[in-house]
């Protein structure tokens, strides 16, 4: 083997690895480093403050609310999206032309910019003239404030996220359902297995890799929610929809507290890291692999 043969693979992976190192790996360490400093971006000196930023963050009621907002948003979005999508997949899993149209319709929001969706839903959720208040009015409900009131603002954002995400999730579930061999269903129906038993004992275990995949994808997506908040609520009213990424954005770009914002970034990094590890540890044992 010549020297070139040894070096060739490295030269092939180098461009990608350089990009990742400069724009992903190094920034992680740089962010951790910055989190120990008090720095406003403009001043030439950074002053070392140790773990003070973290102490400040965790004792700050505003930040605690941001943490609980993010958690609540993630739990609601992930369970609703995954659960409803599974039901829709069981219903829509047909090859028929009409089902194809329905699948296309529910999928379409997935490829639309979050800017468009946020603007559109801000209008739909307008308290005075919005379409949503008209729709719930048909069922006898009074007008709701949706994004304008802290009691409904977070759930309004969840509704938008579920509306956007459900089509993609449903089609992934349908792909999962279609990869289950047909003879397994036949065996179950020959055994006169009841639908519920077939579902819990057969479909659910066979689908568990798909469920696992979707829960992780949805969680990572929910934790980085930004666009809908930036456009629809700006974190308000009274901080009720402020979440981690938006909070970091506010402190970094509006108040120029770089160290403080970096510390919040490190906390987000730790949370995402822990969740990923927990999921891999807990679910990898239970997930059914073929």
């Amino acid at each position, binding site marked *: 083997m010549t020297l070139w043969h040894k070096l060739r693979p490295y030269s092939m992976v180098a461009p990608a690895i350089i990009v990742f190192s400069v724009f992903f790996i190094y920034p992680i360490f740089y962010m951790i480093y910055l989190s120990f400093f008090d720095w406003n971006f403009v001043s030439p000196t950074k002053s070392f403050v140790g773990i003070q930023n973290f102490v400040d963050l965790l004792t700050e009621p505003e930040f605690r609310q941001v943490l609980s907002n993010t958690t609540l948003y993630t739990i609601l979005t992930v369970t609703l999206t995954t659960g409803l999508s599974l039901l829709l997949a069981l219903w829509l899993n047909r090859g028929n032309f009409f089902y194809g149209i329905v699948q296309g*319709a529910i999928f379409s929001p997935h490829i639309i910019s979050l800017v468009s969706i946020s603007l559109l839903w801000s209008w739909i959720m307008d308290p005075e003239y919005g379409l949503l208040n008209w729709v719930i009015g048909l069922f006898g409900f009074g007008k709701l404030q949706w994004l304008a009131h802290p009691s409904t603002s977070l759930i309004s954002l969840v509704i938008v996220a579920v509306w956007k995400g459900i089509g993609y999730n449903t089609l992934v579930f349908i792909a999962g359902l279609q990869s289950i061999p047909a003879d397994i269903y036949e065996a179950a129906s020959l055994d006169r297995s009841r639908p519920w038993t077939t579902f819990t004992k057969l479909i659910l275990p066979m689908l568990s890799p798909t469920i696992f995949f979707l829960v992780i994808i949805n969680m990572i997506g929910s934790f980085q929610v930004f666009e809908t908040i930036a456009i629809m609520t700006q974190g308000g009213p009274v901080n009720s929809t402020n979440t981690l990424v938006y909070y970091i954005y506010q402190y970094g770009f509006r108040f120029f507290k770089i160290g403080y914002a970096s510390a919040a970034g490190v906390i*987000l990094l730790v949370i995402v890291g822990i969740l990923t590890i927990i999921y891999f540890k807990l679910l990898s044992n239970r997930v059914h692999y073929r």
Partner: protein
Amino acid sequence: MTLILRLVNAAGLLLLVLIFAMPFVWMLSTSLKTLPETMIFPPEWIPRHPVWKNYIDAWNTGPFLHYIMNSVIISVSILVLQMLTIIPASYAFARYKFAGSGFLFGVVMVTLMIPEQLIFLPVYLELSTFKLLNTHLGLILPFASSAFGIFLLRQAFRQISDELLEAARLDQAKEWKIIVRIMVPMVKPVLVTFALFSFIAHWNDYFWPLVMTTNDVARTLPIGIAKIREVEGVGTWNILMAGNLILVAPILAVFSLSQRHIIKAFVYNGVK
């Protein structure tokens, strides 16, 4: 199935389509209304006298031709650079044994797990040191490679049989020729899938251009649309929805023409 069950099923399907299509129809309807017409409750679906001028007003709130050009330049450049970096890297990871490949692939997987929303602040500071804020390069370079693309393409390269490669090598073909002429064409469906995925993602992106730009030099279409509200004022939903349609219509049109293919690209290849 009995007739009643069929009807219930059909009604359910129709309701489902309505839930997902109605918002877009509502957007179109609003975009053609006068401002007083948007303030009628209960809402009316058909505008009395379609106001096409809303589209001109929306277009005139900013340099939209410039925004569109920026969107094209940035999305296409990202796509080309990604192709140039992910094809060789994924091929090396799939086909060569080399010391440290496990570690380097680990770097790729970590990148796959880290959302860019998590590290935008340090990257912003980095780009500001390089004097790349408010430039096209600043919006392109961070995405010059894609961990997702490497992951996807590596799987595809792995599935190509060894016999084919051996046969080509016996013919004394140069390795790079084998890659360009034989291997890359074989993974073309995956490349097309990835290209679609990447282009739509960066065409739609709002977060990165918002964070990395403070003026119109490198700003893209989504920023321009979101800014209409600042120019026209809060509550001018008719102008805002007209602008929004400029952003949504091309994607929805392409989608309705090649729905099957796009869905397959987004969904099925990602799962397997």
